[in-house]
């Protein structure tokens, strides 16, 4: 049920549905995509990025919100911290309890390392649980790792690092099998073959899913397995700084208990960074699909210690965030809705983009439809949106498909009186994913000895734009590789005395350049929503339509 004036547009969508069932818009040529992206994709908005003033990527551009944190002050005073009696002494420390961190911990443990996993919220409170659509792996006879490779680099605009893509596509089938052997329930056909779907930018049906709870299923199985194996983990204890040794190798971390402020010192022969993404920085005021702790901490920690980052000037805006109702503004409407057959439709009920183009292209087309062509639909919060015509799915694939394939979406919209099998969904792009990150090689090794990285916090695999289903693949491929490599490195590492010298040096540089006073402290750890504008309220919402309580005093 939509407000009355929105219902009028719903009628138009219904009126064109039958004709649209037979209408397929062509994909855009590579040449047509470039101007569309340059004019409408948020990455290209002037003044929203700036070159970094300090650190290993000095001169490289990144969104202002990330630059502020990368150039920021440490949370700790090295002179007040006693490193002589570490609370833990382990072979491998894994930072972050999402899919990448859990995989790294399992593989490091399997390779003989004594492992500790330290995370910010609970184990499994992360972006991984939110993944709905699925995980790519080229395992059908019609498909091949090479085809997966080509789709991935095309989606990434040919900037991806070849060795990383090779690892991604060649490990993919065995990752699916590994997860199944741990007890993940994949959607399958009665004969055991995988029930696979298409995805934006993919030229084959390649998406493995578990209803629309794919990431939840993956994460809860890995978490259960960590517990079964008795691998140690600490929760609500984010890392606030890495430790190095006197030779400049990464050698552990300082954790801070967010509730009691107690510090914990961990000495580790190798560290795996797996802290996920940055959505809660709300780049350009966009709402986000990301979990509460997605604040780019891992980038900050690694950067301050001296690790190089890559592609930090490209963020992924998911084309379909909920634009209505306000309770779920910005939350993800899975790409699986388009995969199953739903088209994108404007206020007049007309299609305007082929729904399975890569994400950046679809997002840019939606923004153009609303901003330039004025064919969006306004909602009571001032958020504009276009239609995602979900009722088409049952018409194409038979009634009951929506209920079977999209239980999470049905439940989420059903709570607010919208039956997505019968009514279309209002959507607008939302901040979703960090395409770049800490630079790694195919073993997950960063540019710093002793430091490995895996998952959304690293970059290079996806070039300048990630495809659907390639991130929940990335986290297992590189989580496993980094865990294994960290365990091996820990056997040969010869760590010296623990220091925080890199933090002292960092603060000295900040002071000398005059940045210390201008920048906040970081890592951010959590966004501050108390008494502020709720996170789902985008700053670009029309002032006049904003309820008064949403205006800052």
């Amino acid at each position, binding site marked *: 049920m939509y407000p009355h004036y929105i219902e009028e547009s719903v009628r138009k969508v219904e009126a064109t549905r039958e004709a649209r069932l037979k209408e397929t818009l062509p994909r855009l040529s590579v040449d047509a995509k470039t101007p569309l992206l340059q004019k409408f994709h948020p990455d290209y908005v002037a003044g929203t990025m700036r070159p970094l003033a300090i650190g290993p990527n000095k001169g490289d551009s990144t969104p202002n919100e990330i630059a502020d944190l990368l150039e920021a002050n440490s949370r700790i005073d090295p002179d007040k911290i006693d490193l002589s009696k570490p609370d833990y002494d382990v072979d491998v420390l894994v930072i972050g309890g999402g899919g990448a961190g859990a995989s790294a911990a399992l593989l490091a443990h399997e390779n003989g390392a004594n492992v500790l996993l330290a995370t910010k919220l609970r184990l499994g409170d992360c972006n991984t649980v939110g993944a709905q659509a699925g995980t790519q792996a080229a395992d059908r006879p019609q498909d091949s790792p090479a085809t997966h490779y080509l789709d991935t680099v095309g989606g990434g605009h040919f900037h991806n690092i070849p060795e990383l893509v090779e690892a991604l596509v060649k490990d993919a089938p065995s990752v699916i099998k590994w997860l199944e052997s741990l007890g993940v329930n994949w959607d399958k056909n009665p004969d*055991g073959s995988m029930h696979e779907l298409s995805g934006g930018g993919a030229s084959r049906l390649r998406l493995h899913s578990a209803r629309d709870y794919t990431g939840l299923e993956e994460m809860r199985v890995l978490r259960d397995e960590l517990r079964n194996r008795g691998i140690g983990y600490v929760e609500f204890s984010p890392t606030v700084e890495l430790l190095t040794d006197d030779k400049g190798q990464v050698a552990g971390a300082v954790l801070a208990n967010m509730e009691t402020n107690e510090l914990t010192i961990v000495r580790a022969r190798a560290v795996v960074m797996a802290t996920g993404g940055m959505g809660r920085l709300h780049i350009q005021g966009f709402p986000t699909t990301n979990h509460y702790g997605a604040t780019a901490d891992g980038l900050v920690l690694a950067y301050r210690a001296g690790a190089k980052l890559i592609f930090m000037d490209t963020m992924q805006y998911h084309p379909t965030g909920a634009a209505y109702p306000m309770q779920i503004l910005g939350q993800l409407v899975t790409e699986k809705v388009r995969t199953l057959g739903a088209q994108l439709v404007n206020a007049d009920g007309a299609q305007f983009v082929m729904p399975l183009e890569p994400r950046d292209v679809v997002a840019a087309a939606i923004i153009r439809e609303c901003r330039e062509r004025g064919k969006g639909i306004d909602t009571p919060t001032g958020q504009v949106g276009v239609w995602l015509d979900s009722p088409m799915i049952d018409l194409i694939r038979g009634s009951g498909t929506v209920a079977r394939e999209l239980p999470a979406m049905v439940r989420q919209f059903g709570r607010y009186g919208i039956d997505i099998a019968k009514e279309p969904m209002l959507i607008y792009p939302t901040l979703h994913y960090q395409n770049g990150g800490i630079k790694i090689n195919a073993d997950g090794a960063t540019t710093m000895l002793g430091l490995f990285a895996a998952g959304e916090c690293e970059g290079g695999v996806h070039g300048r734009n990630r495809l659907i289903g390639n991130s929940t693949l990335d986290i297992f491929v590189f989580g496993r590789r980094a865990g294994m490599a960290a365990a091996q490195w820990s056997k040969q590492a010869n760590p010296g005395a623990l220091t925080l010298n890199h933090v002292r040096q960092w603060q000295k540089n900040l002071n000398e350049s005059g940045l210390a006073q201008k920048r906040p402290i970081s890592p951010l750890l959590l966004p*501050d*929503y*108390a008494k502020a504008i709720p996170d789902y309220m985008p700053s670009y919402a029309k002032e006049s339509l904003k309820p008064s309580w949403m205006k800052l005093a």
Partner: protein
Amino acid sequence: MVDIYVMGKHYAVPEGLTILTALEYCGYRIIRGCGCRAGFCGACATIYNFKNDPVLRYDLACQKTVEQDMYLTQIPFFPAVKAQYDLEQIKAAGEQILALYPDIVKCFGCNTCTKTCPQELEVMWYMSDALRGDIREVALKSFDCVMCGLCAARCPQGLVPYNVAILCRRLYGRYLAPVSDHLEQRIADIESGKCNSDVEKLKKADENELRRLYSERDIEPAY
């Protein structure tokens, strides 16, 4: 504005907020009890009732809209009994459930778990499937479980349905789901090096060549 009571204290909050955003609007900075903010992680399980209606209700704070006269309090997630097992050493046999969770015989069918579940799953029914040793049924009925812990928090017999459920799903995925032959075949192909030369060619191709191959690639219909 909507009147709500947080741990007994009155606040007026705008209409349309969720319990989670209403608490933040009131100024509570949340550390525990908030994860995905989207109904998937189960961190924000919450119990509430109304000023003039003492019956307890259950939901996910990040999804439930605040209503007039709600009495709110957050119950942080707490650990519960979990059997430790080696999946490779156990069998996908019905008795296995009872061997690892012997207490499930104590269920007396009060249905509190089902009434409590914010995902509206048939928790009591899958617990009786578990008693009968029907692993597949438990896996199917419990599939949408976010493991928020509310069923265990409310069970008068101290049972932990969500941990029984994940045991069954893992047994199902590991042992009972039919094997995917094409997956096995592809893994064998990759291990034998059969896929290497095609990938190698792409790795060596320059950008123009990749662009050409990309725009010429054939695309399998989505359905």
